[in-house]
């Protein structure tokens, strides 16, 4: 009997010590521990969830179809240049996911099937209509998510966020968690920007260009596009340059008629840096091209002297300077009234590369740091008040046995915090509620036992016999009632989002630990009291 108790007591002590060691990093005391302790002992503890420490939780959907479209456009321009070098006179145009080649003849057909095996011929009646084969399209879509993930990781690394989480979810979604970000809007812009850099020639020769208005209000954009849809050449498109009046803050848009086909794209970049124009104190981003890019840029500028070349980022024109002479050396710049942050972020996204496809934001949960702080404070106060209320109630109702139950309650709290710390579990706001509820439920098992013991006492048993049989009779009831809570906690864990998962974790840990403290802790105390001397009366 004695041996059994000592064994149980040492088990309790060991778990308490472990719990304290694991929880220590969450207390101010950890700072004052010796170096060897900090190096060898657990140093992470309970992690605060985004809802408590503040930060961003973003879910993006990578638009895979757009990636296929972009690849289709790339194939179109390669196809054009291939047919041109083979001296075959053909008209090639991309239309969404289709590439149409005219005229339809066997020579062209053969070249395409030989050099572009991933293009599938879907029609040959009115010209040759190709599209990227299903297999290739699927691969592009899958790859797009992976590439986007990699690009986002790159951008965030360069932006500098401590402990970001960037994971893929399902087929085409990316979840980004950035704890403690101060400027959420900037971070969202940085991550979500496609950063598709293009150089396109301005079509000033077409008569539609002369009809375009000087500038319009942003609200008139749709109307203008509708109005000009029929007037402009098939190979052209209208994009806008944004102009902000520095004094009034008014935004106006300048329409520019451009060749649809990009002369150069962002994949020729080797570097992008922020620079300052000392004359106007303006920030701009200077671009360096890789060697093949530099050669291409020289060719394009050489062939189009006196024409305008527009620099376009994500379908917005940034500038459209006139090419004065052939530009060699592989440098260009993007100007446009940037603030230092804007220029810096732009250079980051250009260096990290473009996303393979645009992304749609599905969810954005941003929590400011002050709300999290307030929540933790409120949780602490509620926890302390709730605990005190339960402690007093138990002593009031069960007297000395209530003190034993309260001892089990504190044991429960310590072990719960220790268990969470040992798992590096994430504490969320609902999780705090879970801890506090667990405190309320912790005494349940003791109440069950005490009531049983009272029944036994009423039936005329001695205190020791009452303790033993009350304990045994209550066991299965306690077990059953705990399992039911565990079932719902498991379901919540499976289907819940982040904060609710946190709740499920604390609740289920609380319940499991409660079983331990009630069955080992409380019983041991009763046994110890009983061993000293046979109790005449049970204070219950």
């Amino acid at each position, binding site marked *: 009997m004695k041996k059994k108790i000592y064994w149980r007591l040492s088990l309790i002590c060991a778990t308490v010590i472990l719990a304290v060691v694991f929880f220590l990093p969450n207390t101010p005391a950890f700072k004052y521990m010796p170096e060897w302790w900090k190096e060898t002992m657990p140093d992470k503890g309970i992690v605060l969830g985004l809802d408590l420490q503040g930060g961003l939780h973003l879910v993006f959907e990578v638009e895979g179809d757009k990636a296929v479209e972009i690849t289709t456009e790339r194939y179109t321009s390669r196809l054009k240049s291939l047919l041109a070098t083979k001296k075959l006179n053909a008209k090639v145009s991309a239309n969404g996911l289709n590439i149409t080649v005219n005229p339809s003849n066997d020579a062209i057909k053969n070249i395409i099937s030989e050099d572009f095996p991933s293009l599938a011929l879907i029609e040959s009646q009115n010209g040759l209509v190709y599209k990227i084969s299903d297999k290739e399209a699927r691969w592009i879509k899958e790859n797009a998510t992976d590439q986007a993930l990699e690009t986002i990781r790159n951008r965030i690394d360069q932006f500098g966020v401590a402990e970001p989480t960037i994971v893929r979810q399902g087929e085409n979604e990316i979840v980004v968690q950035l704890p403690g970000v101060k400027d959420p809007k900037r971070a969202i812009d940085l991550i979500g920007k496609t950063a598709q850099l293009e150089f396109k020639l301005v079509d000033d020769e077409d008569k539609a260009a002369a009809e375009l208005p000087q500038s319009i209000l942003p609200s008139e954009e749709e109307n203008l596009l509708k109005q000009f849809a029929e007037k402009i050449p098939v190979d052209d498109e209208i994009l806008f340059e944004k102009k902000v009046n520095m004094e009034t803050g008014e935004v106006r848009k300048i329409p520019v008629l451009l060749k649809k086909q990009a002369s150069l794209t962002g994949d020729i970049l080797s570097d992008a840096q922020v620079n300052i124009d000392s004359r106007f104190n303006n920030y701009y981003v200077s671009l360096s091209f890789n060697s093949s890019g530099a050669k291409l840029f020289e060719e394009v500028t050489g062939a189009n002297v006196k024409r305008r070349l527009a620099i376009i980022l994500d379908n917005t024109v940034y500038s459209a300077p006139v090419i004065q002479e052939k530009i060699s050396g592989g440098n260009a710049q993007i100007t446009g009234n940037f603030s230092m942050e804007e220029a810096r972020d732009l250079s980051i996204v250009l260096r990290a590369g473009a996303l393979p496809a645009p992304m749609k934001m599905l969810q954005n949960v941003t929590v400011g740091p002050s709300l999290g702080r307030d929540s933790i404070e409120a949780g602490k106060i509620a*926890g302390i008040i709730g605990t005190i*209320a339960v402690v007093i109630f138990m002593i009031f109702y069960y007297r000395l046995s209530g003190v034993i139950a309260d001892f089990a309650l504190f044991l429960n709290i310590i072990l719960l915090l220790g268990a969470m710390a040992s798992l590096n579990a994430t504490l969320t706001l609902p999780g705090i509620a879970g801890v506090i509820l667990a405190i309320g439920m912790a005494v349940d098992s003791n109440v069950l036992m005490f009531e049983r013991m009272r029944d036994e006492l009423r039936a005329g048993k001695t205190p020791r016999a009452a303790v033993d049989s009350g304990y045994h009779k209550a066991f299965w009831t306690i077990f059953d009632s705990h399992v039911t809570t565990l079932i719902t906690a498991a379901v919540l864990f499976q289907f819940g989002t982040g904060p609710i998962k946190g709740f499920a974790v604390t609740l289920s840990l609380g319940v499991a630990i409660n079983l331990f403290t009630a069955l080992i802790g409380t019983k041991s105390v009763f046994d110890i009291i009983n061993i000293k001397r046979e109790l005449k009366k049970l204070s219950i």
Partner: protein
Amino acid sequence: MIELIKNPNVNFLGKKYIAFVFSGILSVIGIIAIVLIATGHANLGIDFAGGTSIQLKFEKPVVLHDIRLALERGGLKDFDLQDLPTINKILIRVKKSEQELGQGSEKITDILRQGFPENKYVVDSTTVVGPKVGGRLRADAAKAVAFAVIGILIYVAFRFQFKFGIGATIATFHDVLAVLGLFYIMGKEINLILVTALLTIAGYSLTDTVVVFDRIRENLKLKQRESVETVMNSSINEVLSRTIITSTTVLLTSVALFFFGGEVIHDFSLAMIIGVIIGTYSSIFVASPIVLLWGGKRPFAKK
């Protein structure tokens, strides 16, 4: 020994028809609430309905009406406003925003920055949920409830007899419906946190029911001569003080959370308070009578 009630001897099962009427009304309200929620006629939270919600904390007190006017002037349509005047916080919600996600929230903060230049604010939180995620969260919540119910049914049926499983499940369902119905009537927001509270209530109320069932099972074995109804009544009476005390301790902590836990889990704690009270009532007045009605006179002898 302090005792809540000395040797209670209440004929709980005798009042089963009164209880059934009361519970029936609660359940019907709950079912109506579910139908209305499913058809989109409820005050669904942003997480389920999709849209934008922003919580702002101002430096100085603000008048809700002024904010409303400023937002309307700024061209914002179809929004809800709510304030927590003691801490100068306001909550703005725009449901099913047609605008590009993210831009909606910027527009709101811009309008308020320009509209109240002398009263600065910090953005406490922004939540933007697209329709796709909203739909997924709704489906997940429904699945969670379904799996919890099935899990509970299986466990209780495994540990007890099937009819106890039915009784426990109906009682649990009743509690969830009642809390949902009451929340609907109070015009509270139906959101993920509430579903979490509902499932917690389900687990907790079941705990209560299991304790009562345990005693009934034990007494049925001991007192084979008495009628099932008498045994059930005396069993409920025997565990009555326990039922009330355990509920009291959970209530104590829930009330502490309600008053001191902060605004984010305010509704969660309210749901817990209501749920614990109803769960206690149902384990006495709903679960056992159903087993009695379902189980007939004395088919309990075997186990």
